[in-house]
């Protein structure tokens, strides 16, 4: 293995380093710099001011928006975890042939490879005033007036998030479960554990890395989202991403940059907390 020269290693890693350097590291550096720039109605220009941060952190709107975004992230995390864990558990422990595991796993995976925007739009015929749910509920006499909160509400936003991102929980948790030595479970049952004890004392602790990876995906995707909230909220709901997008559309780049830095800090803190239970390299 040591026949590979340092030069060829350098050649092999240079494409990814250059691309990520220019399109990831440099842009974040630029955001950091621009967050200290000043702006007027027409343009933005180099300066060193703290006003963008004091505007962002001194406003109640910012805190309310963050609270709202945390609320979306928390609800989405909760439901994707419940669904993801249950689906992964079914696939890992109740399906005994590899062939069926692959087939059922692919059935869960295929929607992930199609357009997120189409998947959001596809809820409209279900949730609208004259949508499937309202018609159904009215015809069985449960409600008299159509429910208004189904579409363009917190409900539809979280529903769309869960729909889009449940798979991000299923895959890593399934991966963790497949590594659990089956004899541990037999030992627990032989030792007298009931199903629930086996789940909470054996399976869940051994799935922690998978749960953490899935949670990182779901939480970061929701925290930075600006399309789902905009589309499913009908433009009436706020999130950190939507707030930034509004500033960007008004060309208030330094203000948006300051919000971006704050968002990045918040996301990194959340990720580092979740990373405590997982050694990423061991998971691959």
């Amino acid at each position, binding site marked *: 293995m*040591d026949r590979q020269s340092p030069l060829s290693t350098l050649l092999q*890693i240079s494409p990814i380093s250059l691309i*990520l350097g220019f399109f990831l590291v440099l*842009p974040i550096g630029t955001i950091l710099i621009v967050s200290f720039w000043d702006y007027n109605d027409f343009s933005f220009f180099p300066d060193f001011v703290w006003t963008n941060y004091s505007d962002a952190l001194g406003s109640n709107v910012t805190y309310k928006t963050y609270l709202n975004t945390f609320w979306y992230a928390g609800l989405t995390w909760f439901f994707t975890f419940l669904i993801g864990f249950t689906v992964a558990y079914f696939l890992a422990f*109740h399906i005994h042939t590899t062939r069926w595991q692959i087939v059922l796993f692919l059935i869960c995976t295929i929607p992930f*490879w199609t357009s997120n925007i189409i998947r959001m*739009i596809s809820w409209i015929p279900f949730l609208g005033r004259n949508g499937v749910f309202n018609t159904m509920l009215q015809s069985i006499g449960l409600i008299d007036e159509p429910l208004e909160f189904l579409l363009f509400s917190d409900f539809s936003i979280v529903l769309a998030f869960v*729909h889009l991102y449940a798979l991000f929980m299923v895959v890593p948790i399934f991966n963790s479960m497949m590594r659990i030595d089956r004899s541990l479970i037999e030992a627990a049952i032989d030792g007298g554990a009931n199903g629930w004890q086996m789940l909470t004392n054996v399976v869940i602790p051994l799935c922690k890395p998978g749960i953490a990876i899935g949670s990182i995906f779901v939480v970061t995707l929701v925290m*930075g989202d600006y399309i789902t909230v905009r589309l499913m909220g009908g433009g009436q709901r706020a999130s950190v991403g939507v707030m930034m997008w509004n500033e960007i559309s008004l060309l208030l*780049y330094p203000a948006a940059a300051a919000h971006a830095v704050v968002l990045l800090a918040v996301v990194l803190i959340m990720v580092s907390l979740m990373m405590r239970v997982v050694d990423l390299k061991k998971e691959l």
Partner: protein
Amino acid sequence: MHKKRPASFYWLAIFFGLFVLFLYGPISAIVILSFQGPNGGLTFPMNGFSIHWFFALFGEQLVGDFETSFLRSLQLGLIVMALTVVISLVTGLAFRKKFFGSNLLFYTTVASLIVPSILVSLGIGLIFNIMGWEVSWTTSGLGAHLTWTLPFGFLIMIAVFNRFDKSYEEAARDLGASNWQTIRHVVLPIIGPSLIGVALFGFTLSYDEFARTLMTSGVKNTLPLEIFGMTTNVTTPTLYALGTLTTFFSLFMILTAMGVLFYLRRRQESHGSDAGKGV
């Protein structure tokens, strides 16, 4: 072998069935509703049955510029796919041994996945703005897409090489194969199926990308941007017709990838080794 299944199996199977319904139900509704009659609306009931709304997409009064944006997304997807496969592969090869800065590069690549997309979009937009360059889907858009597809391809390759049995390579070297011959005739055939997977990720993630494209593709829209624009001003089932078409195109690409994968597996199994064939 036929043990009686526990009751929990049936409850979980029902849950799984509902989950599949949850995944596929809404999109099926879109497909059905795109065949609304000419007077039909955005919701059920069906008001007749026609392909009127598909014609409306291609007809005289074009709703949006979806044909060119589709071709643009297709080209971009194929370019991103090719780059993702090649770059993930060579990076994966390098990561089979430790080198100076390997941890830094590993975590930077993972960060590319975790950084909120709106930051990538904004940051690239800012650089191009400050430098006075024009953003376009072929430059800034391409770069933005790679920040999203490369981490997936990279992590897949790392996982693949972690499971790779190095004795195959050592055997090839012992028999006098050069570095290139080892890769071409031993490594690539073994990891071939995984590369198809990377290609599928590269294409579909780019083809459907929105969040990182918004501020980086310039005046010429990719298909997802075009569809997003339509959601705010199109109130007829044309929107569903377009959704149906692009979803079927995605499915076509997924099934093609799986078909190729299946074919490769079969070939590997039936051919076994090509030892002694003088390659």
